[in-house]
């Protein structure tokens, strides 16, 4: 499972690399950002807690994710974590959006 995860994240990082290096990752526009934060709190929140303090899934707060790479978190978001309830969100969330969300998680949401 770990090998698979690492391969997946390497692949995703490779895919994302140009966008990140040139533009720092395409940042979603404000209305999409708002949608993503709503999704994060409400729908990711059903497993990770609305305040992201954790639930069935682990906490997604900056302290909990300290030292993690945004690319790896984005890979988990896009492809899920096999054999666990973490589902893949590819299709609903684009690669740029996943990377942006991962960045928000690492930084911490306001309030």
């Amino acid at each position: 499972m770990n090998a698979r995860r690492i391969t997946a994240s390497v692949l995703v990082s490779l895919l994302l690399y140009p966008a990140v290096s040139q533009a720092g990752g395409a940042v979603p526009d404000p209305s999409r950002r708002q949608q993503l934060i709503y999704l994060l709190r409400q729908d990711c929140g059903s497993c990770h807690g609305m305040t992201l303090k954790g639930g069935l899934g682990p906490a997604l707060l900056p302290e909990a994710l300290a030292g993690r790479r945004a690319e790896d978190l984005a890979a988990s978001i896009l492809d899920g974590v096999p054999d666990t309830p973490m589902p893949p969100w590819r299709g609903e969330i684009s690669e740029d959006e996943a990377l942006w969300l991962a960045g928000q998680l690492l930084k911490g949401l306001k309030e």
Partner: protein
Amino acid sequence: MIAVFRKTLQLLAMMFLGIATARADGLRGTGDLGVVIERAGGSVLIVETTGQTVLGRVTGLGDLSHASVVFSRDERYAYVFGRDGGLSKIDLLTRRLVGRIIQSGNAIGGAISDDGRLVAVSNYTPGGVRIFDAKTLAPVADIAAIYGPAGQRSKVVGLVDAPGGRFVFSLYDGGEIWMVDCRLCIDGGKPVLTRIGRAGKLPYDGLITGDGRFYIAGLFGEDGLAMVDLWQDPPVIRRIMDGYGKGEAKLPVYKMPHLEGWALADGRFFFPAIGRHEVLVADAGNFREIGRIKMHGQPVFAMARPDGRQIWVNFAHPLNDTVQVIDVPSLKIVKTFTPGPAVLHMEFTPRGEQVWISVRDKDRIDIYDTRTLKRVKSLPVRKPSGIFFTARAHRIGL
């Protein structure tokens, strides 16, 4: 201007209804009361189902994402279990918070004992079950869910009350089912713990049948359910519905199903499948699969109308704007509604003539007549999630 006028009229109407449902002497019963969780605001509404009105709001309840409620046996008090480990006790008559503790860092649900003296909470962090005096919320027992040779701590799910002052629950990480007998706890006695055994991979929720006999845990990691016959002594775990999706790739699950809304109707059990857009039907006599009903999405709740004639089903994100109704005799879907985005919960009135449905993203509760399948009313509510009526007080496992 017109809006203001309308508001005033609405207010007047609400006042009138308030007066109409309260007795002249100020006394009222609580059998038609309920609690609606307002997920985002850390508040709950006290509602009544006779005139379908909101009686008031109680605030200051903390993080209510994934909150649930049980009722005292006199149906006067509601115990609200919050995600942040908060356990709040509300007086439905005065609509006041009368007790509140933070009993853990992260909780998932709770139960009340058959004699009404104990309230138990299942916790994610620290993983285990804590039991409190229902009157005072003073702690009476603390069961750490420690499993395996390395002594890891497991999240606890599927906590239910069982007859005889017992609680049954499942270890999500540990994959086990445990039972605690706490009859003597309140008088200083020790809880008696029984590790019933291995349930399977990642039990995610549990239910107990209305007669208090069978405890059933749903498994995320396996196609099947784990069942315990509590009438057996000692109780043992049996696998049922094994391999219900054999050979089929699982679909992603964007919200975990809840078994609390399990349905027993016409000698058949109805369960949400996991990773499939189906409701599973099992013979209640032998727990063999007798059918599957294709549904609109991943079912979250599959709840039987109290008389068992219909099953109402809601769905996980992103197909959560829909509700479907299964007709039990024919096993056919007789109605598909689209109340709006994020239908989170459904609750039947005590005898089931109406069902209340929370539509989170519309900030609304819709009330349907279950015979005509028509909407009869909507109530404005801020981000509603769980709806709980006091009739639960007298049902095992709720």
